[in-house]
């Protein structure tokens, strides 16, 4: 039973964590994130980095699609802009990673604003197609602008560096990716405590009345595109530093769909949902692979039988979640929380 959380000031009431229990749990979570790379083996470290990158990109897409209601299939394209920016800058300049990542985000944001321009006139599936066109166009540029992007062969880059310190291993990259993911999710959380975030949600829920209530639709729709693409650009930049190679095939259309699925499975318009969705979409295919490996000693035919099934099981899991938990994974979490905040009483 949650008791004793009456507030003395509005400041305390508006805080992200409104009780000391929440603060302690969050501190434990941060501690676990900090300790994880020292405990994990190479494989889990690699997965941890991938989840971190996916969390940043999913949070970005969640801002646009989940909170502002603008469906986008351009996420992979925006990530590509970030990835190529970082690759190009690391080859042609000596700038440290915070600068290159910032540029990756800003350039992606600028491209996002351009791709988002049709959003004032079209929405829903039509906007999805318009952003898809933007994504195809970007893909074309990545493949054809050889002097900058290296064409189909792509670009190989040096590891991230900062004042002579290089981040050449997954272990070191983890300490860039995860703190950045935490900061960017908290930034998004802040946005939805202020007028900007309220304007985004208002546009999603009822755009016409939002306009009559004083929200400039063009300004806030483009702002949402810019913010979302900024997150995608940073994620793409981290992706480039992590794999140290970018090619047009690094950012395929299926990647846009992957992030859209992560937002929907996790819970649209819910930041926690974006995190859970990103982790789910990244880890479940791997978990299914591990399951196959674990079954092999008992059923020697498991790999032959399972490998064509993995995609089907993965798809069935997504469909299952959509049917039984339409509000996403975040809703499961909320139910658990509700149970404990009311315990020992029911409902």
């Amino acid at each position, binding site marked *: 039973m949650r008791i004793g959380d009456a507030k003395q000031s*509005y*400041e305390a009431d*508006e805080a992200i964590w409104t009780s000391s229990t929440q603060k302690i749990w969050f501190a434990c979570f941060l501690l676990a994130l900090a300790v994880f790379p020292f405990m994990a083996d190479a494989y889990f470290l690699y997965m941890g980095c991938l989840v971190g990158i996916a969390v940043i990109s999913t949070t970005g897409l969640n801002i646009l699609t989940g909170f502002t209601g603008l469906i986008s299939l351009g996420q992979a394209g925006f990530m590509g802009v970030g990835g190529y920016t970082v690759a190009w800058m690391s080859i042609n300049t000596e700038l440290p990673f915070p600068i290159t990542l910032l540029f990756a985000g800003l350039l992606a944001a600028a491209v996002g604003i351009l791709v988002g321009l049709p959003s004032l006139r079209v929405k829903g599936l039509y906007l999805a197609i318009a952003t898809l066109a933007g994504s195809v166009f970007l893909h074309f540029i990545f493949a054809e602008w050889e002097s900058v992007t290296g064409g189909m062969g792509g670009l190989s880059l040096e590891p991230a560096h900062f004042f002579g310190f290089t981040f050449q291993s997954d272990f070191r990259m983890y300490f860039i990716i995860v703190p950045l993911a935490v900061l960017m999710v908290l*930034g*998004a959380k*802040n*946005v939805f*405590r*202020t*007028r*900007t*975030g*309220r*304007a985004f*949600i*208002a546009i*999603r*829920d*009822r755009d*016409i*009345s*939002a*306009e*009559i*209530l*004083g*929200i*400039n639709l063009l300004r806030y729709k483009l*702002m949402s595109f*810019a*913010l979302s693409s900024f997150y995608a650009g940073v994620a793409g930049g981290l992706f480039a530093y992590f794999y140290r190679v970018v090619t047009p095939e690094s950012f395929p259309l299926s990647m846009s769909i992957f992030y859209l699925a992560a937002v929907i499975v996790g819970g649209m*318009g819910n930041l926690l949902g974006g995190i859970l969705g990103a982790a789910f979409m990244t880890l479940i295919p791997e978990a299914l692979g591990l399951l196959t490996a674990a079954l092999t000693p008992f059923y020697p035919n498991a790999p032959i039988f399972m490998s064509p099934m993995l995609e089907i099981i993965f798809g069935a899991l997504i469909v299952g979640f959509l049917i039984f938990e339409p509000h996403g994974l975040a809703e499961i979490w909320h139910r658990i929380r509700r149970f404990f905040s009311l315990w020992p009483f029911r409902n």
Partner: protein
Amino acid sequence: MPNILEINNLSLSFGGVKALQDVSFRVPENAVTTVIGPNGAGKTSLFNCISGFYKPQQGTIRYQGDVLAGIKPPARAAMGLARTFQNIALFRGMTVLDNIKLGAHVHMKSGLLGSLAYFGATRREEMAVRRDVEKHIIDFLEIDHIRRQSVASLSYGLQKRVELARALAMRPKVLMLDEPVAGMNREEKEDMARFILDIREEWGVTVLMVEHDMSMVMDISDHIAVLNFGRVITEGLPAEVQNNPEVIEAYLGTSDMDSLRKKLNPEREVA
């Protein structure tokens, strides 16, 4: 009393449908003005013209002496034109408190970077809005018990009240209410009438409303304009409007009692 809003010769048509024809009337400052008329008379279209959502083909709307044509809806909101909607237009994904705070949007300044950091000026601005909303609006409209709830879970009457709260957070000079008591029970209607009168008296806000509930309209209005088939039939004090034969005809079909009786009992005439 000076007129805060003057509507002159306004005409609006959609294809062949003439929603408003040569509509003229005035809205005196710091009074309650009500637009009445049968369904489809053009009342909501008129509101949408004032909000800037529809663009009338002819005529002008003057607000504090300035012509509003060409000014976009968000700018009109910032100028002090606030409204509620006939089919409640709350944002279902937000709590009551956030819905009300959204009304203050036009008076806030913080940008995207400030929002991301939630620090300094942005934080102070958010807190000032919270304090203002709590002190002047939530308390005044007696909705402090539901501030944390999602608007989707509220009863119809409370949703209307939250919508009024959101409009008040816009710090309006003219508050446009589209059917503020439709679908309410007697008690809720009385509460709403009390709030409207208090808003006029304590806040000095001009109220322009559309309403069908005649007893409430006659009780709280200072000025009434009657619309029928897109035209203004008459405007004036409640007592004048009430006895106007054209108004009675618009509502009952005719003002001639004899012909009304004949219509109701056609066979008696034969006999």
